[in-house]
């Protein structure tokens, strides 16, 4: 189908984008790469939106080092994340995640900020942000806010972003020298949304396990994390299965998704124990 939009405005810079959003009487919708939003518009899941196009804001694009963290502009595209040397060196989880996201042509336009702000429970980047302990840098006319990933994702397609705010950047702690980060997922076809997916990070402070496509939002599996810290892989898998309640749909039953989550944790542990980064 064709999109039915209520208006369009091209932002010159972030401040301009915020001012434009404020003029939309609650109908504003931030357009970044558009790879989820335009699809939703085409299917008329939403109509009458006033699109504030931020896709040309170069100030929000690219990856830079900032002390012990990487600062990733919200408009950095998936394909750019996948080939960025700083990402490869300091946040390899994100680079690996891009190989699972949709198809090449979509990765050329889709943005990491768009994916995180959209908060699709089946998407890879929100779960990565959770596993890595990312911080979301949000701008609004009332000022800037920093929101930890653990507080950012609220529900399906719902985040801590307030009306009129824009996600401008994401910061991620650089991987420690011995840190390992892996992502595993199962999808029926290359590029499909995962039936279930899992991120595993092992750092000095302990293990971090996050899941996607197993509930209404990405979640940390704290029980599994504690069991892995104690060196109990079987216990971690049992704990993981107990702390998720995946939905059933036409793609997979909840029971199958729960089974897959355990399989994915076992695969991820095998990879990090094998030393594969």
């Amino acid at each position, binding site marked *: 189908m064709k999109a039915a939009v209520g208006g369009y405005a091209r932002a010159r810079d972030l401040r301009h984008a915020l001012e434009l959003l404020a003029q939309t009487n609650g109908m504003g919708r931030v357009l970044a790469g*558009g790879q989820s939003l335009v699809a939703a518009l085409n299917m008329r899941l939403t109509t009458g939106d006033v699109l504030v196009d931020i896709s040309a804001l170069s100030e929000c694009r690219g990856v830079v080092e900032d002390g012990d963290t990487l600062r990733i502009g919200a408009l950095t595209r998936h394909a750019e994340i996948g080939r960025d040397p700083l990402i490869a060196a300091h946040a390899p989880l994100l680079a690996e995640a891009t190989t699972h996201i949709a198809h090449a*042509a979509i990765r050329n*336009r889709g943005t990491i900020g768009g994916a995180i702000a959209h908060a699709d429970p089946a998407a890879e980047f929100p779960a990565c942000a959770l596993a890595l302990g990312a911080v979301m840098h949000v701008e609004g006319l009332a000022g800037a806010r920093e929101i930890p990933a653990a507080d950012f994702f609220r529900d399906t397609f719902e985040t801590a972003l307030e009306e009129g705010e824009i996600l401008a950047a994401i910061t991620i702690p650089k991987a420690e020298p011995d840190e390992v980060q892996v992502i595993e997922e199962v999808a029926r076809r290359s590029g499909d949304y995962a039936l279930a997916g899992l991120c595993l990070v092992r750092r000095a402070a302990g293990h971090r396990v996050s899941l996607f496509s197993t509930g209404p939002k990405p979640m940390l599996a704290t029980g599994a994390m504690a069991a892995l810290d104690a060196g109990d892989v079987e216990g971690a898998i049992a704990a993981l299965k107990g702390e998720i309640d995946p939905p059933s749909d036409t793609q997979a039953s909840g029971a199958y998704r729960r089974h897959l989550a355990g399989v994915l944790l076992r695969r991820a542990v095998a990879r990090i124990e094998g030393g594969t980064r």
Partner: protein
Amino acid sequence: MTEIVRDRIDVALVVNGEPVEARVPVGQHLIDFLRLELGLTGAHASCEHGVCGACTIRVNGEAVRGCLTLAAQADGAEVWTVEGLTDTGAIADLQAEFVSRNALQCGFCTPGMLVAADELLARGGVPSRGEVREHLSGNYCRCTGYEAIVDAVEAVATARAGGDARTGEGGA
């Protein structure tokens, strides 16, 4: 003063090497602008939610979905479609391999398939068959079963790399 446009917006872009200026409806897809306003009907509007790849075109050097890009967003962009790539001869070898290997039947997917394959070929080297399949995984073909398409892309990569034999690192 508002800068929010409610109905139509001016765009200036370069399509297949020629400058184009137009007023487009704010919600119009780039693929519909190319097809309906410019008569460039090579790339197709099909699923219209980014799944099938029939609308794949080149924007600023990258293969993108014409149905997930608004014409309004193409202001200032350089756009190439299968018509332009045919006229310049840029993909003549790829098209010849598609024909000689029957890598198309109805041809509906072919314009998008060619643009997607061309992006992979532009990286140089000889991709493995697995890499070709992965790169084309977002372009659906309902006729060929893909085998001949992968053959054609592989043959062009090998020829462009300067040999009849496989010179790439990757296996099947």
